[in-house]
C-alpha cells in the first residue's frame, strides 16, 4: 500500500528565512508525486507534479525536487502570504487514479 509521510508537521519561519519541507514516500511504481497548497477553509490548490527522480519544478518562491524515496519543497525568501498547509500526494502504479496524501505541513511565515 502506498504511504506518504510529511515533515515537519508545522514550521514557523521569519519572512525571508528560506527552508524546506520533506515528503517521504513508498509506492509501487510511481506515476506521479504532487504538491498542493491548502489555505484555511479552501480546497487544495495544485502546485506541482513530478514524475521521475531528478526532476525539479519551480514556481515563484517554490521549488520542488524528487528522489526515489522523497521529495522536497524548497521555499526561498518566504513571505507571509506563503503561509498555508502544504500537502504531498503520490499516485502509485497499482492504484488507478487514487492519490495517497500525507498529513501536511503547516507553514507559518511571520513578518
Amino acid at each position, binding site marked *: 500500500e502506498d504511504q506518504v509521510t510529511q515533515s515537519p508537521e508545522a514550521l514557523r519561519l521569519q519572512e525571508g528565512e528560506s527552508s524546506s519541507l520533506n515528503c517521504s514516500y513508498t509506492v509501487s511504481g510511481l*506515476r*506521479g508525486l*504532487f504538491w*498542493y497548497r*491548502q489555505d484555511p*477553509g*479552501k*480546497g*487544495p*490548490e*495544485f502546485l506541482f*507534479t513530478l*514524475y521521475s527522480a531528478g526532476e525539479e519544478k519551480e514556481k515563484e518562491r517554490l521549488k520542488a525536487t524528487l528522489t526515489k524515496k522523497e521529495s522536497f519543497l524548497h521555499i526561498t525568501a518566504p513571505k507571509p502570504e506563503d503561509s498555508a*498547509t502544504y*500537502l504531498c*500526494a503520490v*499516485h502509485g502504479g497499482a492504484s*488507478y*487514479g*487514487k*492519490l495517497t*496524501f500525507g*498529513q*501536511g505541513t503547516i507553514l507559518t511565515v511571520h513578518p
Partner: protein
Amino acid sequence: DTAVSQTPKYLVTQMGNDKSIKCEQNLGHDTMYWYKQDSKKFLKIMFSYNNKELIINETVPNRFSPKSPDKAHLNLHINSLELGDSAVYFCASSQDETQYFGPGTRLLVL
C-alpha cells in the same frame, strides 16, 4: 470561471437524516473523485468515476452512494447520517495524473 464547484458549502444536519452534496466541473475532464478530509486534515479518497463509470470504491460505508449523471457531475448521497460523518468533503477532477479540487463542503452532523 469556477473550475470545480460544490454545493452546498456548509451543511448542518441531525443524526439519521439523509443528505446530498453536488459537484460540477467545467474543465472537460473525464474523471471525478470524492475525498473526505477529517479533523486532522488528512485527505482520503472515497470514490472515483471515469466517464460515468465507478472505478474506485474505497472502504466506505454503504450509506454513502455516489452518482454520476454525466461526466461533468458527480453527486454524493449519504443516508442515515452519523456523528462520525462530520468532515469536509472535497470533489476533484482530472484528465491525466493531476487532480483539481473543489472548495469543499463542510458537513456537521449534530
